């Protein structure tokens, strides 16, 4: 029971992990992208349509290769979600619009597009594709204990953890990461030092959105094994919360997302009343607010939001 709980929690946490790592990269550049829920939805759309066209290109379902279907899904999800990021960056950097306004519009757009496009999608063969997505290294049904917790997951779970670790290293240790942080902390200074603020923000948002989009793909194809009936938007907001909860550190997001997923899962595994379930659902947001408050009161510089978060930078308007 405990091992099953832990295993399914880690699996569920992947959804938050993709979203929050993507949003962290974006926010490090100073872009507060409130379009993340919409962008995760766009990733789901892209991934599903990619899988659809892959299935259509095959003669029969039995020819489907696990490697190819995951790869096609990931590429399509990444590209389509990055398109959402491109829209965001185009509006905020090139057209100099307000980030909150643009982000909220993208969320409205993406969530609505998700429910419309996926309801129109022909989902024959999606269950088979979903099982290939969800296939673990070892079979979750026959193993138990630590082996099950660590090795029964699908490729997308391990990829998420790898992306989180790589992102943490890039942001912390490389020159690109240093420049990115400079752009997010003080764009005017970064600009004066010869860093192209616009270019960094564009690329950070594109890559971040693409990664978040993988979360949408994971949710539909892997977690729900190809069922397109549920929306992602509520989880998208939890991913935004997770960014704050983990104080903008992608490596901490691995543990943070497991904690959030555990809270969400606990209401299913523990035999709780309706009221208690609602309290548990509220908890992630409450702890996030507490983290936000505590870091702002006792804040060392390393746990603060990027100083220029949410503000646009135009050289002429300093």
């Amino acid at each position, binding site marked *: 029971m405990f091992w099953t709980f832990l295993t399914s929690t880690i699996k569920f946490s992947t959804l938050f992990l993709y979203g929050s790592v993507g949003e962290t990269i974006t926010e490090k550049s100073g872009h507060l992208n409130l379009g993340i829920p919409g962008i995760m939805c766009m990733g789901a759309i892209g991934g599903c349509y990619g899988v659809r066209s892959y299935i259509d290109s095959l003669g029969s379902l039995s020819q489907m290769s696990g490697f190819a279907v995951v790869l096609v899904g990931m590429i399509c999800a990444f590209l389509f979600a990055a398109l959402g990021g491109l829209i965001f960056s185009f509006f905020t950097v090139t057209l100099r619009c307000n980030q909150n*306004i643009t982000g909220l519009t993208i969320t409205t757009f993406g969530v609505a597009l998700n429910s419309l496009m996926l309801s129109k999608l022909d989902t024959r063969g999606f269950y088979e594709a979903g099982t290939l997505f969800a296939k673990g290294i070892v079979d979750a049904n026959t193993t138990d204990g630590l082996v099950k917790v660590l090795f029964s997951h699908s490729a997308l779970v391990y990829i998420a953890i790898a992306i989180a670790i790589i992102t943490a290293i890039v942001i912390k240790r490389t020159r690109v990461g240093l420049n990115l942080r400079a752009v997010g902390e003080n764009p005017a200074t970064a600009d004066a030092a010869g860093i192209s603020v616009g270019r960094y923000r564009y690329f950070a948002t594109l890559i971040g959105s693409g990664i978040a989009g993988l979360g949408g793909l994971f949710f539909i194809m892997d977690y729900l094994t190809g069922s397109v009936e549920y929306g992602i938007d509520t989880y998208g907001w939890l991913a935004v919360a997770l960014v704050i909860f983990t104080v903008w550190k992608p490596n901490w997001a691995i543990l943070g997302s497991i904690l959030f997923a555990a809270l969400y899962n606990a209401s299913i595994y523990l035999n709780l009343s309706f009221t208690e379930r609602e309290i548990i659902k509220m908890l992630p947001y409450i702890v996030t607010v507490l983290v936000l408050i505590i870091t702002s009161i006792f804040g060392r510089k390393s746990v603060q939001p990027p100083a220029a978060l949410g503000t646009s930078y135009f050289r002429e308007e300093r």
Partner: protein
Amino acid sequence: MRSVTGKPSKFDAFVDKLKKESPIHIAKRMDAPKWFPIVIRIAAVVAAFLICAVVTAFFEPNAFGTFFVEMFRGTFGTERRVINLFWETAILLLIALAVTPAFKMKFWNIGAEGQVLIGALMSATCIYYLGGKMSEGGLIVLCLLASVVGSAIWTLIPALFKAKWNTNETLFTLMLNYIATALISLVITVWVKSGSGVVGIMEHGHLPLLGDQPYVLNILIVALITVLVWVYLRFSKHGYELSVVGESINTAKYIGISVPKVIIRTMILSGALCGIAGWLLVNGASYTINTSLAGGRGFTAILVSWLAHFDPLVMVITAFLVAFMGRGAAQVSTIANIGGSFADIVTAVFFFVVIASEFFVNYKVKISFAHLKKDKGEEKSSESLDKQASSAENDEAEAAPDSDSSEAPDDVVASEDKEVTE
């Protein structure tokens, strides 16, 4: 000290930048005539309609013509629909008015959704526990008071932390939305033991109908509030102070405005107006409570307010347009059988186009290839020379960040040191 990029010097970076300079130049529009923004915006709205029709045709090829007809039929087709349209306008307008003072102060309160829900919850609580035990008039007034106070306190939480510790208000208020939603689900599970999560129509505390039509009283209340908020922002000392805080916190401090006090006062006002919106939704419209009562209007209202440049009277127009798009597109999606969420897509596309148009109101774009030609100096038009001169000035300004920055100059210098030594 080494430079952040590792480039040899700022001068080299400057030369590089000149070489790479793009042919597109963007400059702030200073000399536009008064009619110009209006024309651009009207053009944007018309363009947005056309684009939305094209999007509709993308989903349903035969629907292009139907789009325009059904947009109007869905909004002005029957008396009932007209009233619905005006009520939708009114409630959007009220929430937009609520967030406006905070936005003028550059306090990015995106928690209107939650604040409205808390107002609704307070009102519903009064009805649930006191309905039938006191006079209807008294109950309605009590509901109003509870909504306003509850919502104001809810809004006060992020305001206090912003004023005292500069806690990021955007993230804080965003999180509070979901706490408010969960709180409503929680209360509903207490009220409805079956776990169905549906409260049902409540018998008491209904606002009186004017002329046997629903919503008329609500619309009148919102109209009154619109005028009051306009007067408050335009003519009162408070309104002046909050716009000073929005423009420059340092200026505000310098002329003796207590910034924390203004933040807290304005946010209480914001919360109180959201409370009234929640009260109207419960007592004057739906007579019940659920988590989707605000229905995303808290977020849409932010767009309404922003599009109107925080002017309450212009907001009447923007709120109407947004309500019109939403209601009309809902009708189009029903007739063309596209799907429920289609209305949201059309609204979002509409917003995209209108937001983008603001760029052309504020900036002018010039495309010149003169500086890309090989033989520099002689072939340049005087215009692009000017531009180079101005970009050189910009660069000098960057080298000395404390020259004419409107932000806190000390801040810039200090953090520059930090970045370089890190």
